[in-house]
């Protein structure tokens, strides 16, 4: 009962507040913003509090909260319960999802304060976290899929939030459609999975118990298709194209959805299905490669981007690639830990970017923002940047280093190499961003951000710095509390401490070198202005154009072909022609009706004669 209550409130408070905000904003046009603010914050705040409570109990008392709400579907063997379960993994997820959401909510009250659609924004926003919780807390994959689709949907709504410009809407469409391609894989996988399971319900625990019954090929197929879902949601190659465009939404949206929460759902899902992936090493390896490629590819593109949010978006994609690499080699906890830290620093980066954008009248191009003066933001952003580049002792140092270690230890050195290069590139583009923004001559001075924006950022800064301490590896005397808590089916890699130290050192050294060089190149120069802003990298390897030219154009062509050629010309016209031919034939036949009575008599005679010929023929054979 307590579980039901807790989980229920956790889940429903955003939904209820979202609905309330919706109704109010639709029917009472002149409502004060305060009411929306209160409702929105209440919704996410209550959730955040309960989430912390649950995580606390989960972490320290190893409690599992579970609740069965109602039966969603029951057809013969097919039973889907709407059941929620906060086991360690889910608790871990809500541990950062809920508070970060809450913080971004607070931030957004400031960021959006002058927007006319303030209410609508928070309605979507709360709806989003409802779906996110549903995704995370679901105890069976179908309900998880509902949450999964739901976040996609709300994300679509939020990306296209400024619908006055149709391009934003298209960006939303793109996001949802690409996501749905992933969902296609996800749902197919679920169906296959369901049909392969002997019986006994579709809860996760039962699924994992039944995996052994599934034949290997099907299992691999399922694993692969699940990952297709993850590709879509977590913006991995080849389904990443939506993420950069998704930056069309308001910045809090980018911070929450496209950095901290939704995009990590793919990682969460793969981790959730860890037992499955452990049985399909080839798919895992594939995941690792996709992750590596995405990380490298995104990092590469990020080096030549100028839009502040786009840089961060590619960076997100790149970091997600890191996570998938870890997942691919079986280091699930490591991946999740990176996700954890990533939520903080990437959230922070976006918020900072948002603060800059607001302060400088919606300028987003770093070439226009050279040398801005914005001290507080600078500090916070610097911390976040250092975190993302994995400079010790910031949190990401621990997480990313663990990934590198795992990659190295797994024996796939090519993966390690790619991760290493990505890591270097990360250092480059982040420092490039920072240097261009803050270490340049410029007169632009911003007015301070409102408090509602500032304090959440403060908090996140702290978290970025210290979150790493929660999963300190043995190397530094920690005991990997997190990993133990999550208790996932990790593959345990051990490498000699000496090697680990060496790796770390080399890594850090290279990063430091890159940062230094970048500073030299961009600080107080016009390198950013004169650098070549065309070519393959700047244009993101023409991937969008490629998709447009092939997939989109092909579908359009096909559509025309179907409608104009097949339906109209090949079928309909033929049918009409048949009718016309019939009429034509009627005209021809009616020429016999020429009105001349002698002809009529002649027809009769012809009839008579042919009848008699027939008769004679008949009788001849009879007699």
């Amino acid at each position, binding site marked *: 009962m307590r579980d039901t209550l807790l989980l229920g409130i956790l889940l429903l408070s955003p939904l209820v507040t979202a609905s309330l905000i919706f109704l109010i904003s639709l029917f009472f046009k002149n409502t004060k913003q305060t009411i929306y603010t209160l409702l929105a914050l209440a919704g996410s705040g209550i959730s955040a509090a309960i989430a912390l409570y649950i995580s606390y109990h989960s972490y320290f008392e190893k409690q599992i909260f579970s609740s069965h709400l109602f039966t969603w579907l029951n057809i013969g063997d097919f039973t889907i319960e709407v059941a929620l379960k906060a086991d360690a993994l889910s608790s871990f997820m809500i541990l950062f999802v809920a508070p970060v959401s809450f913080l971004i909510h607070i931030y957004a009250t400031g960021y959006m304060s002058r927007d006319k659609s303030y209410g609508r924004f928070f309605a979507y926003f709360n709806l989003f976290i409802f779906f996110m919780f549903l995704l995370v807390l679901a105890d069976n994959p179908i309900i998880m899929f509902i949450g999964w689709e739901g976040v996609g949907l709300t994300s679509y709504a939020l990306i296209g939030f400024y619908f006055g410009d149709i391009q934003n809407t298209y960006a939303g469409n793109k996001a949802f459609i690409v996501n749905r391609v992933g969902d296609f894989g996800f749902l197919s996988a679920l169906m296959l999975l369901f049909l392969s399971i002997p019986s006994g319900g579709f809860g996760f625990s039962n699924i994992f118990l039944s995996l052994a019954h599934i034949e290997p090929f099907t299992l691999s197929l399922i694993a692969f298709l699940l990952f297709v879902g993850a590709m879509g949601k977590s913006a991995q190659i080849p389904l990443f194209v939506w993420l950069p465009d998704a930056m069309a939404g308001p910045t809090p949206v980018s911070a929450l959805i496209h950095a901290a929460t939704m995009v990590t759902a793919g990682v969460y899902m793969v981790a959730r299905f860890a037992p499955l992936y452990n049985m399909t090493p080839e798919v895992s390896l594939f995941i690792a490669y996709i992750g590596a490629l995405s990380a490298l590819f995104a990092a590469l593109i990020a080096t030549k981007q100028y839009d502040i949010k786009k840089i961060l978006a590619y960076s997100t994609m790149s970091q997600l690639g890191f996570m998938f690499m870890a997942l691919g080699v079986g280091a699930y906890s490591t991946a999740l830990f990176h996700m954890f830290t990533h939520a903080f620093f990437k959230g922070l980066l976006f918020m900072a970017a948002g603060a800059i954008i607001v302060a400088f009248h919606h300028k987003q191009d770093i070439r226009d923002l050279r040398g801005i003066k914005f001290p507080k933001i600078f500090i916070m952003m610097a911390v976040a940047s250092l975190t993302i580049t994995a400079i010790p002792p910031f949190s990401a140092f621990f997480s990313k280093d663990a990934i590198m270690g795992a990659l190295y230890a797994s024996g796939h050195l090519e993966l390690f190499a790619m991760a290493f290069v990505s890591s270097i590139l990360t250092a480059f583009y982040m420092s490039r961003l920072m240097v261009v923004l803050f270490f340049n001559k410029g007169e632009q001075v911003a007015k301070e951000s409102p408090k509602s924006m500032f304090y959440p950022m403060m908090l996140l800064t702290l978290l970025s710095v210290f979150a790493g301490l929660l999963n300190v590896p043995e190397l530094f005397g920690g005991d990997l509390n997190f990993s133990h808590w999550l208790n996932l089916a990790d593959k345990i890699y051990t490498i000699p401490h000496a090697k680990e130290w060496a790796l770390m050192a080399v890594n850090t050294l290279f990063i430091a070198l890159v940062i230094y060089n970048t500073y030299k190149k961009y600080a107080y120069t016009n390198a950013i202005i004169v650098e070549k802003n065309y070519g393959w990298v700047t244009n993101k390897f023409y991937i969008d154009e490629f998709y447009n030219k092939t997939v989109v154009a092909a579908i359009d062509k096909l559509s025309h072909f179907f409608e104009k050629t097949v339906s109209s010309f090949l079928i309909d016209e033929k049918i009409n022609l048949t009718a016309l031919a019939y009429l034509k034939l009627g005209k021809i036949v009616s020429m016999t009706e020429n009105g001349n009575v002698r002809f*009529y008599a002649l027809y009769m005679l012809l009839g008579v004669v042919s009848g008699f010929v027939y008769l004679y023929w008949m009788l001849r054979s009879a007699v």
Partner: protein
Amino acid sequence: MSNEFIALAVPALLLFSAIFILLFGFSSHYTKNRGYFITLATLFIAFIISANGVGTKYSILILPDIFNSMVVYDTFSATFISLFLLGGFLTLAIAKSFVDKTNFFTHESFVLLLFSLFGMVVLTMANELLTAFIALEIASMSVYILVGLNKNSLKASEAFFKYLLLGSFSASFYLLGMMLIYAQAKSTNLDVIAEYILHTELHSQLLIIAGSMLIMITIMFKIAAVPFGAWVLDVYEGASLPITAYMAGVFKIAIFAFVLRLFLKDYITFDAIYDPLIIGGALVTMFVGSLLAVIQQSVKKMLAASSVVHSGYILIAFASIGEATSSAASAIMFYLFAYFISAIGAFGVLSYISKGSDKAINYDDLDGLAKTRPIIAAALTIFMLSLAGFPSTIGFIGKFYILTSAIEAGYTFLAFFGVLSAFVSIYYYFKVVMHLYFKEAGHVEVHYGYKVSLAFIVLSGVVVLWGGVGTSLLLDIPGINALNELSRYSIESLGF
């Protein structure tokens, strides 16, 4: 009333009434209205009398000593006689406005109408070839003249000319055929011929087969089967509307009544020989008929062409008579009921709205009628649906029986082609509906008057609907089942 009395009373009544009007017509007391109502009353009384003979199963020879077994009165003839009388009555009742507004509807036309009905009555009862032929000639000649009544109209004269010429031409085939049969069977009595056929080898039947073939040609001509029905479009077009209705609705049925008797008594033995011919005829008739119907501009011509198609449907059932005798024969009867009432209704509406003008009623003339005269439009729609065989109308049930009997006889392909031509017929019948409802009226129509005509049109419409859905479940009025019973009794009274 004894059946023999009915059998004698009905034709006698018609005859006497005809002669009375003929004489009365020369008197100064005669007005058109009086003639009209006397005719109407005669028809009504005759109908009432003859309706008494319907419903039970019997078969008697009328005055066999005097008439030498040449006429027979049975449920079959009773049913058909009631049908024509009703048909004649309805045609005339609906044609009131037409009769009033035209000056060629003299007393002779009533006389001829009664004579033609007399001819049909005798034709239906005829059990002998020559009697049947004379009866047929009486009916035909009356109708020829009725077609040509409007002698100032070029169209009517031409129609008269064509009908008379081709009718006489076809009649001579009948006589030739009769002669051949007589030469072989030494009798013209249907029963005797049937006996003869039953007891001889095919070798001794050659001339009977050829003669039957020739008689069939006349019949094909009368029912306007292709290629003998080329006249039908022209004649229907040329005749004035009530007469067209009469021809399509009543006269044709009389022919079929005779054919059915002929078939069931004699032809059925030669089933194997004739079936392919009839099938071919049915196919060609349906096909050509529907081709002609789709391209017509004039509604009247369209209905004429479609009546050809309907003959084709009935031929389907004739083809099936050999294998599925009772169901096919009842199907024909039912179909005739259905076609009778629908055709009379359809032509009746046209005559109602034509107001006696000679002008061909084109589709365009129906435009917007639904706005000005919703009831008339609805009635015409119902008749069209019935002719098209749309469910919930009597026409559908009729078609249903025909198709079922065809399938039962093993001629599924024939049923299939029947359905195809029904499909085409949807086009031209619905075109009428389309013009009634969807087009705007070009001119404002005044009201047409004559509540009586309207009432009978509506009545026919109701009958059409009731014949399509009617059941004793709802009201205690004879519905489909009763009509079915009726046709079955009729067929059984012929000895099947």
